[in-house]
């Protein structure tokens, strides 16, 4: 009985946690860039859903390609915390589970903002998260509440 109860509660808890939105304040040092997504304005929750792999297609039906800072990137912890509300390791476990289960395509990890920017520019439908980016990019997306 205990075992059956445990397997019943855990999925329910996971659903509840997954459905919760990340806090908006954590995105202040982050710059989201994208290439040919069909629109340049997204809400935070929309973008969060894209970055978590919940939506696989952009409004223009291009495939969503996530480009995230690797664990060697200084802003990796920031992105993990702001976008996923998890640590870097947990985000990896998250994406491992997603890949195993075939739910989403895994993100492309880059070690620097420049690499992320360069990759997004080169790949239409790619969306990247820059941390502490001081420059100006035509690919920057406007996130609104």
């Amino acid at each position: 009985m205990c075992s059956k109860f445990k397997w019943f509660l855990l999925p329910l808890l996971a659903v509840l946690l997954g459905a919760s939105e990340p806090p908006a304040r954590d995105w202040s040092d982050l710059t989201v860039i994208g290439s040919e997504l069909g629109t340049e304005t997204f809400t935070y929750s929309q973008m969060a859903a894209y970055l978590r792999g919940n939506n696989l297609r952009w409004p223009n039906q291009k495939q969503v390609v996530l480009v995230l800072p690797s664990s060697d990137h200084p802003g990796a912890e920031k992105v993990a915390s702001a976008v996923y509300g998890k640590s870097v390791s947990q985000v990896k476990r998250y994406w491992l589970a997603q890949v195993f289960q075939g739910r989403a395509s895994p993100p492309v990890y880059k070690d620097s903002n420049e690499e992320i920017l360069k990759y997004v520019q080169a790949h239409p439908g790619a969306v990247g998260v820059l941390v502490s980016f001081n420059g100006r990019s035509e690919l920057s997306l406007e996130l609104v509440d």
Partner: protein
Amino acid sequence: MERIKLHQTVSFRFWLVLILLSVTVAIPVVLNLYSYQKELLQANTKESFDSNSKIAASLVRNALEQDDFLLLQNYLTEIQESGEFAYIAIVENDSVFVCQPPELRNEVLANTDDFNRSQAKVNTSFLSGELILASSKEVDATVIKELSRPVLYLSAVAFLATLILLVLASLFLSRPVLRAVQVAKALSEQDYEVPIKMTKRTDEIGQLENSLLILRDNLVSLKEENEQFTDRLEEKVRKATNRLERKNFSNLVLLDISNIFLSSDAQFTSDEKVLAAFRLINQAFGFSFAAALLKENGAVVVQHCEGVVARDIEQLPFWEKMAEKPTDGHLYHFLVEASKDKPEGSAGKEQGWDLAAYPYLDASDRVNYLLFEGGDASKQELEAFLSMYLNLYRNFQRFESSEEELRELNKTLEQKVLEKIKQNLEMANNLVAQDKLATIGEMSAAVAHDLNTPLGAIKASAENISYMTKGLLEQASSFSEGESHLLGEMMNGDLMLDIFKNSRQVRLEQSKIEDWMTTHRPGLKDSGLSSALASAGFESTHEDWLGRICDLESPESFIMAVNELMGIKIFLQGIEDSVDKGTQVIQNLSRFVSEDLEQERSEISLRNGFEVIEGLFRHRMRSIDSYEIKVDADIKVFGVEVKLFQLWSNLIKNGLDALNEEGFQRPEGKKMVIEAVPVENGMVDVHIRNNGPEIPENIKGRIFKKFYTTKQKRHGTGLGLSIVSNLVAEHKGEISLTSDAEETVFTVRLPLAGAKEGAEV
């Protein structure tokens, strides 16, 4: 020709047995093969799983350690698409972190025997656990089963292919053999037109076909040679036959023995008579032969007469030539030129025979058959020679059977002879009676005529008497007593006057009566009374009657009455004579048919007999020109008158028939003459001659035989001369016949009456 079915062939049965053996062996082999294949697949699957799972685990772990989730995703995709793994999972702290597919998450922890599992350690910055790869045993079994199934299919296909190949191989072998058998059978039945299909094979079948082809060609060649040989043989036979006919081979009888001597007869082998006959023939022809004969294809086979010919044949001249006597029982081809080897003087030598003899020896070196061929000697010569053997043998056989029959017949011969004699006598009597009736039938016309003539005369006389009586009564009514008395005397007396004299005779008598009157009654000389008296038939010699008539008062009326009276007397005498003639005819007929007279012997006048017969056959005598009897009245024979009547009547009737034969003519006239001439030893020869057609020489000897006749059916019974011959014999006489173009004479020699006691009948 009976056709052999495929299933009847030896090769087909051989292959059928082979197929059955193959089935019994192949099925266990296939099943074992299938099982082995299955186990092999299972082993391979396990090994493959271990290997593949290690590789997959290594790739997944490497991708995880590099945090390369794209690469991981590719690996996972490949792992899933390979289908080799039932699930892939990562277990961390005894719990399943991830599992693909998720529904087998419980199975990961349960770890049942339904799956093969492979585990590998995974240790990264974000994960530390075990990577588990598993494959489903059920799926493996299905796969193995699927993989093993072709083995069964292949085995079945291979087996069926093998069967088909075997059948084809059977056909490949059987059909040529069948064709060869068909050809061989056809050849054995002398069908040389049978086609031989050549398959251009170089194996045994091809050699067999080639051999059959050669065999057929050889047979055809042999057949043609045989036909040519037969033609030559027939030509020889024909020539020899012609030669034999020219040689006038009169002591031999040519017989076709082809249908006669087809069976052997061993019964006579112990018959001494047959053996003696053979020896006689052997002496004649210089050979020793046997008895039972066969004839085949123009040759004559003489079957050995065991125990006889075997001994005699060694004495044959050609026997010495048989230096090499075969012991294998086959035909020993030994040619004998008989014309050379036969001793001088033998019949065969004289006839120039050229015989070929083929002694046939059995295993015991004994001659069982002699096969003869005509060299120059023809088949007919051989047949004639051998048929003489057989005729002799058969004659002996018939003689033996005849002897037995003769003994049986002798037992009852006497009784049979007596019965036969009795039958013959009865038959002879019947035949004589029949002939007599036939003669009576022929005489009936004459009898009727002989009776009609006197009856007619009687009738005419009666009418004349009636008329004359009337005149007489008229004359007599005026007569005086004296005239009536004188008329009565003349009526009752013997006086007969010829009232039918001619005028010359009347004038002569008148003259004589006038001379008498000149002397005795001169006053009446010129009264004319002489003329009345002469016309009434009176003559000068009737002086007493003339005187008494002249003295009457009215002699003229009296003379007329006398004339009437004489006419009545003459006609009465005619009636009496006619009655006598009719009576005589009836008496003659009675004498001819009377049975009472058949045994009555007496002296018979030959002339009377012939005259009676002349009267009876008078109507037939008119058909010839002359019938003459030159027989003295005093020639008499002793015999039965009725039978002699029949004898003469048959001979005369036979002569009349010959003279009246249709189309026969004699310019000088048809004649029959009966002569009786006494000869020495108290005999008389009665010749009955006629100048009818000549009796041919070849039938003279048969003419006295019963039922032999040259006449047409309505005229002849074939009994007449046969009866004549018997009747002559009964009268101790002889009959002979001579006939030429001029005349035919039957001469009957009979004993004269009184010469001895007469012929005893």
